[in-house]
């Protein structure tokens, strides 16, 4: 892949985004020709809406939404959790990453599910795996782990072998009149 041309395009994209977003941008990085823009948690909804609605940038599609736990990362980061929005423009085929750092204590960020329906399950997965709370999400509950599961498995301080929850999964039985769907 011609990294030079990719980087040139990326710089152009970053310039356009900076011009549009202005003060909301906290910082930006380019690695292997890919652009990442850091914004504050308070601005995230307005930034995403701007990027989506802007006729020139036209990042109309949320390609992916995920999270990174920087607890054990060798270099310091502005917050423990990094929420990563990967935006795609279906018109230009370009990709832009937006990152928001959240503190270790009570990480919370406004939900993007009002902007893209695609964010619904992705945010539920982040809530499930990292315990990040999405304010204003219509149905924020666990998606991959069973109901009643304790802990957030993708956090770095969660052991890969688990904590033996299998023994303490809540068991739903019809006799207890709790309804089905247990483990």
């Amino acid at each position, binding site marked *: *892949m011609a*990294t030079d041309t990719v980087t040139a395009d990326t710089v152009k994209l970053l310039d356009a985004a900076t011009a549009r977003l202005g003060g909301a941008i906290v910082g930006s990085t380019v*690695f*292997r020709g*890919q652009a*990442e823009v850091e914004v504050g948690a308070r601005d995230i909804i307005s930034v995403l809406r701007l990027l989506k609605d802007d006729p020139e940038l036209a990042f*109309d*599609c*949320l*390609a*992916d939404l*995920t999270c*990174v*736990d920087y607890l*054990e*990362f*060798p*270099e310091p980061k502005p917050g423990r959790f990094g929420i*990563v929005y*990967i935006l795609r423009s*279906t018109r230009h*085929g370009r*990709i832009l*990453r937006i990152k928001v750092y959240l503190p270790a204590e009570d990480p919370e960020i406004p939900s993007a599910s009002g902007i*893209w*329906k*695609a964010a*619904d*399950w*992705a945010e539920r*997965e982040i809530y499930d*795996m990292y315990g990040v709370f999405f304010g204003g999400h219509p149905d924020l*509950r*666990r*998606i*991959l*782990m*069973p*109901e009643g599961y304790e802990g957030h*498995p*993708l956090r*770095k301080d*969660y052991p*890969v072998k688990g904590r033996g929850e299998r023994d303490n999964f809540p068991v739903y039985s*019809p006799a207890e*009149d709790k*309804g*089905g*769907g247990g483990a």
Partner: protein
Amino acid sequence: MSGEAGEGDGSAARIPAAAPGATKATTDRARPACAPDVVHGRTGSKKADSGGPGRRTMLLNLGPQHPAMHGTLRNVLELDGERIVRANPEIGFLHTGFEKLGEHMSYNQWVTLSDRMNYLSPLNNNIGYAVACNELFGIEFPPRASCILTIMGELSRIADHIICVGLMAMDMGAFSVMLWTFVEREKLYDIFEAVTGQRMMTSYTRVGGVFRDAPPEFPAMVRNFCSKLPSVLDEIEYMLNRNPIWLGRTRGIGVITREDAIEYSLSGPVARASGLARDVRKDRPYLIYRELDFDIVTDTAGDCFARYKVRMGEMRQSLRIIEQALDRLPSGPVKVDDHKISLPPKHLVYTDMEALIHHFKNIMPGHGPRTDRGEIYSCTESPNGELGFFLVSDGTGVPYRLRVRPPSFYNYQIFPKAVEGLMISDAVAVLASLNVIAGELDR
């Protein structure tokens, strides 16, 4: 069923209580065991639009142990007669923790787990992961490896699409199509076995290349397969395209609009059947797709029939791609020449000190291939759509974070909307046409 509900007279037009599972649900009416609100400990959020005052709906568990639910998908359907008022998909039954495991394995070890995501086309997962690793490492496949992987990826795409069409036809009652498609898949698996040593869990790629070269008879095997496939595709289309049952059960069923396709971040054949000409092979060409001439197959109808047609069309495009790639299959190495990343040749390991050290460093835990600190998002076009990897490297031999963007996860989100107002049997058709694979959905 809901016959005793308010509008009891209307039940004459509906199918009486012969639907599967109806008996259980009827006995559980007083305490619906599967009510989503009960299951999730919430109350009062139930929609009031269930068909007017006094009208009661029934809750039915479809899956996870249901043959039409393709793996371990569970759907709690709220039914009015046989019509779906609301579908509530429950996922996670096949959650295996691939992403967590990825943070504890070297870059090359995780390839074996990528096989187990979309188990209908493991090679495309291998390719997606290897392309992402290469992007993170800032390296490229050697030309021969690129070409082989392009061919293998397209063969794997054919295997996935043809099984999807076959299973969809089986769900609609056309059993023979399924048998024909499995014959083709077996032939493809013979090729995979010859190249990778495995029929299903191929684990073919490594960072910067593939672990072994294709055998000399590889081009002939592929050409032989490709020369015979078009007649099978014709036969399937001859069987289905004018079949009134097939048309009745797929045309106009589960329509997804182009706007919804963007809104829900759909990709692959599902998005293209809705008129969204989105294909990573064109948008962000990887391997040798930039040099190849092929078309994005699209349709505008957005229904199950359109998704079937797009898959059929894509198999023909795959044949075109394979044809071109075979013509330009170069000779040469199949992994990068940097032995800090790829294993040195075995005969050198036994005779050359340097090679032995590289081999050791590559294999031992904590010493594997490593790269600079950084984060990348890379995507490839898997048969189901955009298969993305978000990789974070902290400079060690183990990924700091390995996120998979499975196409099925996003494609399945549209399901409740697509089946609203349809019959239960239509939900089966819609699900089959979305080709949701539980392995990659739950990871």
